[in-house]
Each structure stands twice: as structure tokens, then as C-alpha cells.
């Protein structure tokens, strides 16, 4: 038990450090980066809940992020702006305007509900078939977002979403996400799901219900994604369906894979490391572009770096930086070793 509490304390401590660092520096940009980092934590931890414990790669995650973002947006855009922002909106919702704090939760629930319905039959599949169907699911969700103009304003940018996500709200959500991901991992369901990850046949022979376990984790994962998406929407305040497709998928997956999908610690470390490197590179990219060293804008350096890093990690450290043991566990083991000496 102590080691779980230790893990929780260390990881939430890291979040607190990020918040304090950003606040004391009193640089607006840093605060933005820190807020974004906390939102990414919610999203990446969401993917960790499913992928880390089930061992199955899911491409659909940012699709549920999109569902969350659009749900909360539709319910919170001020009534007077709705005519402009969402001209095709169903009349029932036209007069509706709810508190964002409620709709962020609703967003998570809607994403979870959609996940529950569409994923139930998919959870029997493993390996390549599972990944291709999750990819197909992402394409379906994206196509729907792109064309369901009643709710999403089609491929056009949706604007007018109230800005409510600040650093504290995002950090609070991230802390909750850490606690929830850890709790799930150590719960009855989490342990059983991890047995199916390590050996599906042996898990079945013990009596584990493989599809149901995966299903529950997938729903939970979509809940995180929906909340994360809504937080992101209320942070960025305008977006289009493009924001919830392969590029975003790549970043979230990259963070998880580099940190280590098998542990909550890995997910958190992954987000921290990739964010730091990304922001550094982005700053350099910005400087280069400002100096107009090249005739065209320099773009894509961050993605190329992330891609190379992912490949390198998978070759040299296939489980990611933190593969099997949580940080609390690692610390306590080290302390014990020292005592023995």
C-alpha cells in the first residue's frame, strides 16, 4: 500500500512543481505551456488506462477527445453567439447554455457512452485486427465530425467557446487523472486486465473475462479522453475537426510509448519529457523562421524528432523509459537495498 501512496505523492508532486514553476516564473507563455501539459496528462493517462493495461494499441483515443471537445462546446457557447458559431445547430440546443464545469463532466460521460456502444463488439479482437478496427473507428469519428455540421460546424473552425480552463483547473484534473489511473491499475479489474495483456490464453484459463475487462478499460479511457478534450476546448476556444486526427494521435501515442505504456509513472514522465523537448524545438523553429534563414517556413522538426525518438525507444528500451515498476515502488526498493547494506 505504501508504495502506491508513494507513487501517487511523487507524481502529483511533479504536477504541483510544474504549476509552481509556471506561476513563479510569471511568464505567460510558461503558464500556457504548463496548462497544456496538464491537459496532455489527462489525455495520455487516458490512453494508458486502456493500452497500458490491455496491451492493445488504440488509434481511436483522440476521436473521443473530439467528442468531448464538441459536446462541451455545443453546450456552452453563449446563446447570442450560437447563430454565428453553429448556424445549423438543432433548435433544441439553440437556447441552451450550461456551466462549463458541468459540461466538462458531461463531455466525459458522452465520450464514454459512445465508446461503450461502438467498442463492445470490437473487444474480442486482438493484434492487427484490433489495431485496424481502432484505426477504422478513428476515421469514422473523424468523418462524422467533419460533416455533422449541425453539431460541429462541419470542417470549418468552431469558435466562441468560453475560456474556462486555467492552470489550476487543468492541474487539478491531471492530479485526479493520475490518482484514477493508479487506482484502476491496482484494482481488481486492472490486475485481471493486465493478466490478459501478458498472456491472453493463460488469463482465460484462470477465468478472466477478456472482452469485458477490455471493454470497461476502453470506456474509462474514453471518459478521460472526453474530459481532456473538453478541457482542451475551453483552453484553446476555437478548433476544427483537424485537431482530432492523426497528428494529435501521434503526439499522444509518442508521449506514452517513450515514457512507458505499462506504468502510470511512464505516462507522466513521457508527457513531461516530450513537452519539454517539443517546446525547446518549437522555440528554435520559431527563431529560425523569424530570422528567415530559409525561403520557406521550417515545419515538422518536432514531429521528426518525436518519430525518431519513438523508434529508438522501441528498439533499445521496448517497454519505454519506465517499463514495469511505478516510481514509488522503485524508490522503496532502493531504500530497502540501502538498508540491507
Amino acid at each position, binding site marked *: 500500500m505504501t508504495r502506491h501512496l508513494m507513487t501517487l505523492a511523487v507524481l502529483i508532486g511533479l504536477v504541483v512543481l510544474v504549476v509552481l514553476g509556471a506561476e513563479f516564473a510569471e511568464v505567460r507563455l510558461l503558464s500556457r505551456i504548463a496548462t497544456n501539459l496538464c491537459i496532455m496528462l489527462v489525455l495520455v493517462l487516458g490512453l494508458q488506462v486502456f493500452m497500458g493495461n490491455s496491451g492493445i494499441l488504440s488509434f481511436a483515443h483522440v476521436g473521443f477527445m473530439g467528442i468531448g471537445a464538441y459536446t462541451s462546446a455545443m453546450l456552452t457557447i453563449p446563446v447570442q453567439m450560437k447563430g454565428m458559431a453553429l448556424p445549423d445547430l438543432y433548435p433544441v440546443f439553440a437556447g441552451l447554455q450550461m456551466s462549463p464545469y458541468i459540461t466538462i463532466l458531461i463531455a466525459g460521460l458522452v465520450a464514454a457512452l459512445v465508446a461503450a456502444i461502438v467498442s463492445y463488439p470490437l473487444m474480442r479482437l486482438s493484434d492487427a485486427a484490433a489495431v485496424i478496427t481502432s484505426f477504422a473507428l478513428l476515421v469514422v469519428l473523424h468523418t462524422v465530425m467533419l460533416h455533422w455540421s449541425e453539431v460541429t460546424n462541419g470542417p470549418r473552425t468552431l469558435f466562441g467557446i468560453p475560456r474556462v480552463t486555467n492552470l489550476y483547473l487543468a492541474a487539478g484534473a491531471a492530479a485526479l487523472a493520475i490518482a484514477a489511473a493508479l487506482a484502476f491499475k491496482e*484494482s*481488481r479489474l486492472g*490486475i*485481471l486486465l*493486465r*493478466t490478459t*495483456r*501478458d*498472456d491472453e*490464453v*493463460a*488469463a*482465460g*484459463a*484462470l*477465468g*478472466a*473475462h*477478456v472482452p469485458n475487462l477490455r471493454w470497461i478499460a476502453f470506456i474509462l479511457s474514453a471518459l478521460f479522453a472526453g474530459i481532456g478534450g473538453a478541457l482542451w476546448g475551453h483552453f484553446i476556444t476555437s478548433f476544427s475537426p483537424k485537431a482530432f486526427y492523426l497528428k494529435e494521435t501521434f503526439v499522444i501515442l509518442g508521449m506514452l510509448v517513450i515514457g512507458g505504456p*505499462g506504468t502510470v509513472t511512464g505516462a507522466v514522465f513521457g508527457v513531461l519529457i516530450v513537452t519539454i523537448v517539443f517546446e525547446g524545438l518549437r522555440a528554435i523553429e520559431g527563431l529560425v523562421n523569424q530570422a528567415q534563414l530559409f525561403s520557406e517556413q521550417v515545419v515538422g522538426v518536432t514531429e521528426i524528432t518525436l518519430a525518431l525518438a519513438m523508434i529508438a525507444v522501441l528498439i533499445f528500451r521496448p*517497454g519505454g523509459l519506465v*517499463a*514495469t515498476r511505478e516510481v514509488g*515502488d522503485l524508490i522503496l*526498493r532502493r531504500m530497502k537495498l540501502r538498508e540491507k547494506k
Partner: protein
Amino acid sequence: MSSNALRVTDISVEFSGLRALDHVSLFVEPGEILGLIGPNGSGKTTLINATTGQVPLSGGSVEAGDDQLTGLSPREIARLGIARSFQIVRLFNAMTIAENVEASALAQGEGRRQARLAAREMLGEFELLDRADELAGNLNYGDKRRVEIARALVARPRFLLLDEPAAGMNESETEKLLNLLAILPEQRSLGLLIIDHDMPLIMRLCHRVQVLASGKTIASGDVSSVRTNPAVVEAYLGSSVEVHT
């Protein structure tokens, strides 16, 4: 045969036209150890797989006590108290020993707290408690085998089917395993079915032996009668070798 035995009745299994099991029957009484032997490819592992639902039957039925197991999934069969081990050890390698054993209790529907207590108790009996937090993937082979058996036992099975538990063990490990298995049936009132190639182990352990060859039962009975049974000798050695007894 009592009414609470594990009864495999007249089962057949086919793989793409090939008959792996051809009308085989057997039973295991609670508290008894049955040895299942036979040359390579005779269908022993298939019989365990068929009993636990890993491969579909093309005929026959399987029952345990009053429970009908025919056509159930491996999961349902496991929940009815039939546990098994695999020919190649299948532990959850990225999880700790404690989690491996605990998961088995959880899969039976036990709560988190009870499962943990049961797992600790079982690991204590197997002298693995001080290593409970090690990752299963890092164990040596003999210990992996013992964890696998501990994992099966924590589910309190009525019947335990072991597929070559001593394969790849050295003599001292085998000896340790033998002592462990010998007391199980009485201590936990379960029926034990065991496949192994180590004949001395089978001889010392089993109350009864059944012999398969080419998917059929060719002999069954007590250990000494089976050993001298001409059909068994032929299946193992070929026909023209004289039998020394």
C-alpha cells in the same frame, strides 16, 4: 467412478481432418492422482485442452460432478473449479509473483482483500513469500513452475490438470515438485491429472495410469500392470524388443 468425479466421456477432437483424439474416455476422482502417458503426438495435451475448453470437441462430453462442461468457454470451465497448467510455462511476466497468484483468486470472483490474503498464504506455503514482489519474468525455471502451480491452487480448484510440470527440471527440482504434488490431493481434496514424460515421477506419484497412443486409449490401470502391458510396450518401443521386467 463416483458422481463427483471429473468425467471425460467418449470425446473426439479433429484438426483439419486429422483425428487427434478418437473416442477417449477417462475419469479422475477427487483425492486421486491420475497419470496420463503416451508417446509423442498421442493426444495427451489435446485431451487437457479439450477438457478445459481450449479446443472444440467434435464428439463426446465432459462433466465435473453435476456440472456439464461440454461446450463451455475456458473461462466458464475455470470458474467451475477446473484449473490447469501449460506445457510451456505461461506466467504473466510483467507482473509480480504476488499479482500472478492474486489474479487467479480475483478471477474466481473473490474480493481484493481476500484475494491478497489467499495469495500471501499460498506463497507462504510455497516458500515464495520473500520474493513476492519480484517480476515473474525474472524467475528461474523451477520457480516459474512452482508459481504456476501456486497460481492454479489459489483458485481452490476441484480438479487440477498439469501438462508436463517436470519438463526441463533437474533432478533436485523434480524431487521437490514430487513431494509437493504427492500431498495435494488429500490436503486440498482435489483430483489431479498429470501428464509427464518422466516415468519414475509418474510411477511414484500416480494412483492410476492411462496410456494414449495415436489418439486412443490403449491401456489403463495400476502402474505396474500398465508397464508390462504388451500394447504399451509396443507403442513406446516398437514391437520386436523383448520385455525385460
